[in-house]
C-alpha cells in the first residue's frame, strides 16, 4: 500500500489533534484595572452568591472562596513598595500545578483534574480532617464549623450548599465552565481585570497576556506552581 504525501500529512495532523495536550486553566488579574475602584468587592459577592457561600461574622469560622488581601500579605513584606503597600489584592485558590492539598488528602476528596488542571473538591468524600488547610500555603480553604445554611439569607438551588464538617474552596467555577461560561468573578468584574482561559493554548487570550506582560504569582519559591497570575 502506497501512501501519498498529502494523506500522510493529513494523518499526522489528525494524530496531533487526537493526542492534544490537556488544557491548563489559569487566571490573570490585572491589578491596575482592579484598583480603579479599591472598594469594589463585586467578584467576591458574585462568587459567594453563585455558590451559596455563607457570610459568617466570626472571622475564625468564616468561609471564603475569593477575598481581598492587603498587597504585602499576599506577596510578602519585601515586595510591597510604598506605591502598592496596603492595596487590596483579590486572592483565591491558585489551582496549583503541584497542589499540596491533593498530596495530603487521605481520602482523595480533593484531586487535580487531568483534563484541565482544576483542583477539585469532592464534598461527598471529605471527612473534615483539614490536612489540606494545613498544607495549602495560600489559606485558600475554609472549614465548615457549623451548618452553613443557617448563615445563608438567600439560597440558590442550582448549586448545592456544604454541610457541617467539610472543607470548601474555589473550584474555578467548573460548573459554569461545563456550560461554556466564564467564572462568575471574571464575568462580573466591571473593569475586566480578570482574564481566564487555557494557558496551554498559545492562541488563548490568557496565554498571549502572560507572554506579553510581566506576570507574578504568590509564593512562587514554594514550587507549587500557582495558576493565578497577577499583572501590574
Amino acid at each position, binding site marked *: 500500500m502506497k501512501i501519498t504525501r498529502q494523506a500522510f500529512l493529513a494523518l499526522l495532523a489528525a494524530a496531533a489533534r487526537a493526542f492534544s495536550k490537556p488544557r491548563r486553566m489559569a487566571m490573570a488579574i490585572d491589578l491596575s484595572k482592579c484598583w480603579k475602584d479599591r472598594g469594589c468587592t463585586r467578584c467576591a459577592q458574585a462568587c459567594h452568591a453563585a455558590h451559596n457561600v455563607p457570610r459568617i461574622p466570626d472571622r475564625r469560622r468564616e468561609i471564603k472562596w475569593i477575598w481581598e488581601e492587603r498587597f504585602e500579605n499576599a506577596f510578602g513584606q519585601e515586595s510591597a513598595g510604598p506605591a502598592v503597600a496596603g492595596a487590596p489584592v483579590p486572592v483565591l485558590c491558585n489551582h496549583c500545578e503541584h497542589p499540596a492539598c491533593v498530596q495530603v488528602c487521605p481520602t482523595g476528596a480533593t484531586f487535580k483534574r487531568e483534563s484541565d488542571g482544576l483542583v477539585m473538591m469532592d*464534598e461527598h468524600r471529605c471527612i473534615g480532617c483539614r490536612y489540606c488547610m494545613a498544607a495549602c500555603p495560600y489559606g485558600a480553604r475554609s472549614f465548615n464549623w457549623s451548618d452553613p445554611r443557617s448563615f445563608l439569607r438567600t*439560597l440558590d438551588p*442550582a448549586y*448545592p450548599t456544604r454541610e457541617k464538617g467539610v472543607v470548601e474552596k474555589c473550584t474555578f467555577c467548573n460548573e459554569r465552565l461545563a456550560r461554556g461560561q466564564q467564572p462568575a468573578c471574571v464575568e462580573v468584574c466591571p473593569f475586566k481585570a480578570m482574564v481566564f482561559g487555557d494557558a496551554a493554548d498559545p492562541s488563548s487570550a490568557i496565554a498571549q497576556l502572560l507572554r506579553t506582560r510581566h506576570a507574578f504569582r504568590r509564593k512562587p519559591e514554594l514550587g507549587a506552581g500557582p495558576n493565578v497570575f497577577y499583572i501590574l
Partner: protein
Amino acid sequence: MSERAIIAAGVALFLAGACFPFWRNAAAPPRPLVLPLPAGERQCVAPVAYMRASHGDLLLAWRDRVVRSGERVFTAPDGRVRELSLVRTCLGCHQKAEFCDRCHQYVAVAPECWSCHVDPRSPR
C-alpha cells in the same frame, strides 16, 4: 405462691410487649406505598424495576461521573440527552417531598443528599 404469680405475670407482660408489633401488623397489615408519578412523563431514565431497586447506585454512579470525570450529560434509553443532575433531572419531574421523602420515610432510611443539595420547590 405469690412469687410464682408475680413471675408469671411478668413473663406474660414481657411476651405481650415483645409480640406487640406482630399483633399490630396482623390486625392492620402495612399497606404498600403508592407514590405519585409525575404527570405527563411516560418513562424514567431507566426501567422502573431498576429504578426501584437501584436508584441509589445510579445516583452514586452519576455523582462520580460528574465530580470525578467532569461528565455532565448522558443519553437516556428513550434517546433524550439529559443532564447528570439530581436536582435538575430527577427533581425536574419528581417532587422531593411527595416522592423521595415519603418512600424513604416508609422504608426508614435517611440518605444524606439533602444536607447539601437543595430542593428547588422549597429551598431551605
